[in-house]
Structures are given as C-alpha cells and as structure tokens.
C-alpha cells in the first residue's frame, strides 16, 4: 500500500513538471505577441524593446520558465494584459462554476447510470437491457454542442421550464436561482457520462454476477438486493471509477460549450475569452491550473481504487 502510493506520488510529480513546462512553452511558442496587445497602436520599435525588457521577454526561454514557475509557487500567476485583473482572481471567480457543473452533472449521471446498469445486468439481453443499450447508444451521438441548443430550444425557449442564458448567479447570492440555472447545463454534461458509466458498469456487473462468490452469497440466503449492493457493486466499479476520473478531468475544461451557450463565466468561458484577446498570461495560468487539476483528480481516483478494491494495491 505504502509502496503503491509512493510510486504514484513520484509519477505525479514528474507529470506535473512536464505539464507545467508544456503549459509554459505551448503559449510561448505560439505566434501572437503580448507586447502588441499591451501597446496596441503605440507599438514603436523603441517602446517594444522597453516593454519586452519589462516583461522579461528578452531573457532566454528557460530562464523565463524558472521565473514564471517560481512566481507560480508563490501563488502569483501574473496579471491580465487587458483587464488588469490577476489571473488567480479570474480563476478564483470562474472555478466554482465548473465545480458546480461537474458535481451537478456527475450526480445526475450516477443517479441515472447506476440503477440502469443494475437493472440491465439482472437479465443480460432482456428487454430492459436492450432498451437501455440502444438508448445510451443514441446518446453517444449527442455531444453537448448538439444536444445543448436542442434542450435550450425545448426547455428554455419553448416551455420556459429552465431559465435562458446569462441567468447564472453565484451560489452564495441566491441558492434557488443558482440551482435552477445549473440544472440544464448539468443535464447536457451528464449525457456523455451516463453512456460511459452505464456501459462500463453493466458489463462489469454481468461479469461479476457470474463469479463464484455471488453464488456463494446466494447460498447464504441473502436477498438479490443485498447481493447487488453489498457484493456485486463494489468489485464491479473499478473501471467505472477509472473512467469517472478521466471524465471529470475532461469536464474541467470541457464545459466550454454550455458555458458559452448559456453565458456562464466558468473556466472554459474565460479560456476562450482570453484566447481571443491574446491574453497569454491568463491562458497560461488557466492551462496550468486545468492541467494540474486533471492530473490531481486522476491521482485521487487511482487512490480511490485501492479503497474500493483492495486487490489493486496488492498487485
């Protein structure tokens, strides 16, 4: 167990180092020049040189990286060239929206996928299983940018069940309005997760229910319900957890579409906004934060496996 965690931590540190290098160089090596953004029409060769020097852009790249990363460690992700807000400030305001969307969509996805998979696995290829399989297969072809406009059309424009765009308010301001605004985008984001979770859990449950220890549990006189919840579910959730880690990670930056469509200023929204403004400090900061968050979440889920299935840590 200790060894397993130690190995994971070393890998984690290596990956975070590479991710930070990638975030830095990705933005640096791209065309587009922050100096032009700052100076705008005042860009004379002399001014450019001065600003270049002020920003440290005349130093070698590796030196710039170390200056940047040492600032990052002090919690300083730089400042926006356009709005002059600090990057940490921008991230601090937008990250909670993503967290809310992720929690909302994942709760929905679990609430739908688990009962569906449990019912379907009871009679593989039975009627319910076939219906559930084809439904999720259809959902696989409904990515957010396809289903979100349709749901907005139906529920916000046509039936007025959900509020339209730009109706998001922070949780602290009005809980009800906040939850109401979060629900539609959460449904959109949940769709993709439902498909993945249902298919993985169904397949693993079907395999687990054929194991000897399930027959053993039946011979103990346990109810089907108890066998499903206590004996079958946990050993069947490992691949689901693995993919939940990946899904949640990809959602951190994968909420662009709903955020833009519904005008919610989350991380994805801010990233697109800053990218369009050539605001490279902010892009760099968001990229780093998103990438590190994804890596950390995957690490957390790797650790969760060992709790759910003690076999993994022993291997």
């Amino acid at each position, binding site marked *: 167990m200790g060894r397993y965690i130690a190995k994971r931590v070393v890998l984690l540190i290596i990956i975070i180092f590479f991710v930070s290098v990638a975030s830095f160089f990705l933005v640096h090596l791209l065309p587009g020049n922050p100096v032009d953004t700052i100076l705008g029409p005042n860009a004379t060769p002399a001014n450019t040189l001065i600003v270049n020097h002020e920003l440290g852009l005349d130093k070698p790249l590796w030196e710039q990286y170390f200056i940047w990363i040492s600032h990052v460690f002090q919690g300083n992700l730089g400042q926006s060239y356009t709005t002059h807000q600090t990057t940490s400030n921008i991230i601090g305001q937008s990250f909670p929206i993503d967290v809310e969307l992720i929690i909302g969509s994942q709760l929905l996805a679990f609430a739908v996928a688990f009962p569906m998979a449990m019912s379907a696995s009871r009679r593989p290829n039975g009627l319910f299983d076939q219906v559930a399989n084809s439904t999720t297969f259809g959902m696989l072809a409904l990515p957010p940018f396809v289903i979100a406009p349709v749901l907005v*059309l139906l529920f916000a424009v046509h039936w007025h069940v959900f509020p339209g765009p730009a109706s998001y308010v922070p949780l602290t301001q009005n809980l009800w309005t906040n939850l109401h605004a979060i629900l539609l985008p959460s449904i959109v984001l949940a769709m993709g997760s439902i498909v993945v979770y249902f298919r993985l859990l169904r397949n693993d449950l079907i395999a687990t229910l054929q194991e000897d220890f399930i027959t053993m549990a039946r011979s103990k006189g346990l109810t089907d319900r108890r066998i499903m919840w206590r004996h079958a579910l946990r050993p069947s959730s490992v691949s689901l957890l693995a993919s939940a880690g990946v899904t949640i990670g990809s959602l951190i930056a994968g909420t662009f579409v709903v955020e833009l469509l519904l005008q919610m200023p989350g991380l994805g929204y801010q990233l697109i906004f800053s990218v369009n403004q050539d605001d490279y400090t902010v892009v760099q900061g968001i990229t780093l934060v998103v990438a590190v968050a994804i890596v950390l979440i995957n690490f957390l889920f790797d650790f969760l496996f060992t709790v759910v299935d003690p076999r993994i840590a022993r291997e």
Partner: protein
Amino acid sequence: MSDQITPPAIAATATAAADEPEEELTTKSLGLFFWICVGWITLVIVMALIADLLPLPDPNIGNFNGSQNAGPGWGHLLGTDDLYRDIFSRLIFGARVSLVVGFGGTGLGLILGGIPAMVSAYRRGRVDTLLNTTSYVVLAFPAIVAVIAIVTFWGHALWKITLVIGIAGAPLIFRVIRASTLSYATRDFVLAAKALGASDRRILAREILPNIMPTVVSFGLIAVATIIVLEGSLSFLGLSVSPPTPSWGNMLNEGSSLLTGAKGQTNPWLVIFPASAMFLLLFSLNVVADKLRSHFDVTEIKL
C-alpha cells in the same frame, strides 16, 4: 477463469456459447441496420464530394429577394437562415468540414501514432519504453486546451485544424495500436516468418498489419466520430473555419444565438437540422464501428 472452478454444466454452456460465433462467423451477417448506417455515411460523403456539381443555391450568399428564416418548403428544401441562405445547401457544404477534419485527422493520427506504435511494439527495447512513457505524460495534458490555444493563435484554416487535431490524437492512437500489435508480435506465425528470413518491414506489413486491421478500422471509425465532435465543438465556439464557410458546428452556433433571441428573431429549424445531421452521422459511425468490433471480436476499447 480456469475450468476447474466452473461447474461442469455451466462450463459446457459457456464453451458452447463461445464456440458459436466461431462456427457462424462465415455466415453471420452484419444485419440490415449496419448496411443502412454504412449507406448513410456513404451518402453524406458522396454528397459532400459532388456538392459543387449539385443544383444547389450558393451556401455562402443568400438570395436577398427570397425569404428569411423560412421553414422547410419547395423553394428551399430545409428552409433558409437569417441571412437568406439555403439551409440544405449549407448542410451539404458543411459536411465537408466535418468529414475532412474527421477522416483527415484520423488518417494523420494513424500515420503519426499508428506506424510508430507498430514499429515500437514490434522492436520493443528502450525506444519503446521511452515512447510509451511519453504517451502517458502527453495524455495527461488536456488536449482540448492545447488545440484551442494553437488553433486560435495559428489560424482557422481547415488544413491547420486537421493537422492540429491529428497531432493531438496521435498519442491515443499510439497506445491502442501498440497494445494491439503487442498481442501479435510474439505469435508463432510472426516467429515463423522471422525464421524464414522475412524483413521486419515485410513482417509488419504482411503478417501483423492484416491481424490488427479490425482494431484499426473499428477504432479508426470511433476516432473519426470523436474528432468530428471535437471539430463541431470548436466550430460551435467560433474557433474552427471562419464564416461564411458553413460547418455544422457554426450553423448550430448561429441557430442557438437566434434561438435565444439575441438578434431579435428565432428560427428553430436552424438548430434542428444541423443537430439532426450531426446526430445521424455520429450515430451511424458508432453503429458501424460497434458492429465491426463485435463481428471481428475486437475487445472493447475504452476511450
């Protein structure tokens, strides 16, 4: 699971079930539904290819003497948008973007990721370890963020988007093809070919490639669908091909902005048609990939 722990009769049932597809493989048909989906994909490809030859109104310039935001009808099969442009025509020309990026990006990914993967898995050694570890690290990085940043700073030309997405997809394709090649690289028929003095290139092309082909094709089709989704999202965010060039993603974007009344008009058809087109194409690709996968008994790939 060993036979020893399975009750005999149940083991018999299991073997019988496992034997069945083998016996019927030659006669098992892929089913009508499969062929309908293949037909749909082919139709979309053909229409996109010969779009210029079809008697369609210009997709980019509207007929300002015609009707605006019209519903489906005889003059314009699927109606018009807020700029008087024919939606049907825009859908067909828009298919080009999805198909070029989808198939082009997958092809590029297969060349950049697949070929090194085959060689790497076949030769093993340090290079393989290095490439394998690198692919892990690269996959930890959020590809979508990188793609958005690069595309924005570099430009929105179709070939640039295809190139960026193809490169971004290469590490994942590398992993899948590598795993698939590994399972064949040490088989007896490969060793036999080696013993007969066949060159590595010949073994890879003649012995291993035909065996991993089912994986390549079914995974490739899933990759096409995934990339079409990615391009659609970029288009939807206004980060793909620049207007007025139509793509299903930017049509959906325009449709949604009309929906929410941002321009004072509404046109639900401009959401419904591109959404349906996208759904049908993705659905068909998924069905074809899935049926091929189960037909050739390729183990499910987790994306």
